[in-house]
Structures are given as C-alpha cells and as structure tokens.
C-alpha cells in the first residue's frame, strides 16, 4: 500500500509493477491478505450452499432456487456435457466447489474495499492446479493402470510407428508436464494483468491531477473513468476464467477416463 502512495508522490511517474502485489503480512506476521481472502472465500462458498439447502423443500424458495441453479449450471453444463453420462457423478462436488471457490476469489478483485484477486499471487494458482494435476492423473491410473494410462496420454491414435519416437516425448511433455503450468498461469496472468491495469489507471489519474496540472485536470478524471470501466470488464474476465479453469479440469478428467482408442 505504501509503495502505491510513493509511486504517486514521486516527481516522475513510476508505473506500477509486480512489486505492488507483494503485500506485507498483518502485524508483521507471515499471514498476508491473499491468505485471509482464501479462507474468506471458502467460508462464503460453504455458507451460500449450506444456507441454500438448509430448509430444502419441493417448491424452492429464493435462496434455494439460486443455490440449485448455480449447482445445476456446473453439473449439467460442465460435468455432464464434458465428462459424459455414466462417469460424471463422482466429480460433480469437486467441479462445483472448484468453480465457485475460484469465482468468489476472482470477484474479490472487483469487490469494493477488498479489491485484491487472490489468484494474482502465482503460488495460489499453482496450488490449485497441483490439486487438479494429482486428481486427473490418479483417476486415470486407477482406471487404466500406470502403463495403460501413460499409453493413453502419450501415444496418439492412428500414427505410423516410425513417428512415435518423435511424438511420445512431445505428448508426454505437453500432457503431463506443461498442462498444470499453463492451467495455473492462465488464471494467474489474467487476474494479475487485469488488476495491474486497474492500478495503472488509478495511480496514473492521481499523478496527472496532482503533478501535471493543466490538461491533467481533464485527463486525470478520464483515467479514473477508464479504471471503473476496466473494473467492469474484469467482472467478465473473472467469471470467464473461473469457467475456463473448471472446463479444462473437466476435459482433463474426461481425457484420463476415456476408453482406449
């Protein structure tokens, strides 16, 4: 926070960078704001679904209807359509939890007074992608056995034998090693870049008004209007990224469960 104020107070404008995301811990402890937001998001998601089904009735009330349609959107739109009719049931709770946990954490980026997307810290996104990596590999190995699973993931169907030495290492690299990294980086980079853009417009507007004067009195408020517009654009991106993360999780699970071709 103090580095933000300093960026504005300096004579020359210092563009905000990755250092703006290194928040100090509360009261000099190692416990930082993103960690607190993770816990808060878990509580919000739990409370929403717990309250929405607490008094379950055949004709749903407003809250129960909201909870059921949120659950149904992920269950039918993602889990059933992608993983397929007879395998998707065990993964519905996982995918629903993951979608809403990421969604709430992303929405913190635009929520007034919180305004910090948790996954703009790369480590948080890596941890989440690690969970998904362990799950889809474990599911695939349990279904096909270790050898069968590796064959499924690394040997593409309908390829001549002499191409295999070239393709197998590439497929292994892309399907086993790079997948979790791109999964995590996609979420992280979108949250990071969006938030950085909002910081840039906010601090830039303040700098124009305080230090430049003249035309800065017109350009500064204009930059703040853009900062607000970017925040609304971010709402769309935040939802989309939660959806994409869950969609790719479902695709990977489907790929691990697929029959031998």
């Amino acid at each position, binding site marked *: 926070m103090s580095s933000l104020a300093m960026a504005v107070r300096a004579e020359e404008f210092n*563009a905000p960078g990755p250092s703006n995301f290194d928040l100090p811990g509360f009261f000099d402890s190692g416990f930082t704001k993103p960690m607190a937001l993770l816990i808060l998001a878990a509580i919000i998601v739990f409370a929403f679904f717990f309250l929405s089904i607490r008094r379950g009735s055949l004709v749903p009330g407003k809250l129960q209807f909201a909870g059921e349609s949120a659950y149904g959107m992920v269950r039918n*739109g993602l889990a059933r*359509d992608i993983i397929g009719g007879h395998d998707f049931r065990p993964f519905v709770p996982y995918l629903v939890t993951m979608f809403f946990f990421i969604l709430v954490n992303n929405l913190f980026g635009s929520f007034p007074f919180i305004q910090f997307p948790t996954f703009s810290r790369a480590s948080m996104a890596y941890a989440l992608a690690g969970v998904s990596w362990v799950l889809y590999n474990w599911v695939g190995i349990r279904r096909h056995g270790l050898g069968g699973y590796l064959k499924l993931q690394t040997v593409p169907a309908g390829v001549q034998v002499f191409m295999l030495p070239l393709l197998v290492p590439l497929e292994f690299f892309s399907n086993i090693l790079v997948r979790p990294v791109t999964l995590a*980086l*996609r979420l992280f980079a979108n949250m990071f870049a969006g938030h950085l853009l909002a910081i840039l417009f906010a601090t830039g507007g303040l700098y124009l008004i305080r230090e430049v004067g003249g035309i800065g009195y017109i350009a500064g408020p204009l930059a703040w209007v853009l900062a607000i517009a970017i925040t609304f654009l971010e709402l769309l991106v935040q939802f989309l990224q939660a959806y994409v993360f869950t969609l*790719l999780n479902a*695709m990977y699970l489907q790929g691990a469960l697929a029959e031998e071709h």
Partner: protein
Amino acid sequence: MDGNLNMIGYGLAAIGPGVGIGLIFAAYISGVARQPEAQSRLQAIAILGFALAEALAIIGIALAFVL
C-alpha cells in the same frame, strides 16, 4: 519511467493470439447466427479454443517476466 525490450517483444507476441481469439469468436458468432439451437454445443468448443489460443499469450507473458 523505465522498462525493457521484453515488454515490446511481448506486445508484438500478443498480436498472434489476439488475431487467433478474434477468429475463434468470429466463427462462433457466425455459427450461432446460422444455427441458434447449436449454441450450447458451440459454446464449450469456442471457449476451449479460446483457452488454447490464450495459452500462447500466457506463455509469452511468463517469458517476458522470466527472460
């Protein structure tokens, strides 16, 4: 104001995924315009293609900071 060539390079590298994502959604929109009832099926495919094209831009931004 400081910076380095990496950022210019990343800006150039982001053109490719930008064009790619534009093409994907153009195809999605015209597909839905021709056959509105196919929207739910096309949507998942379009978003998957968007995610794959975006992965290139993401690898770019990671390398822009790392290199």
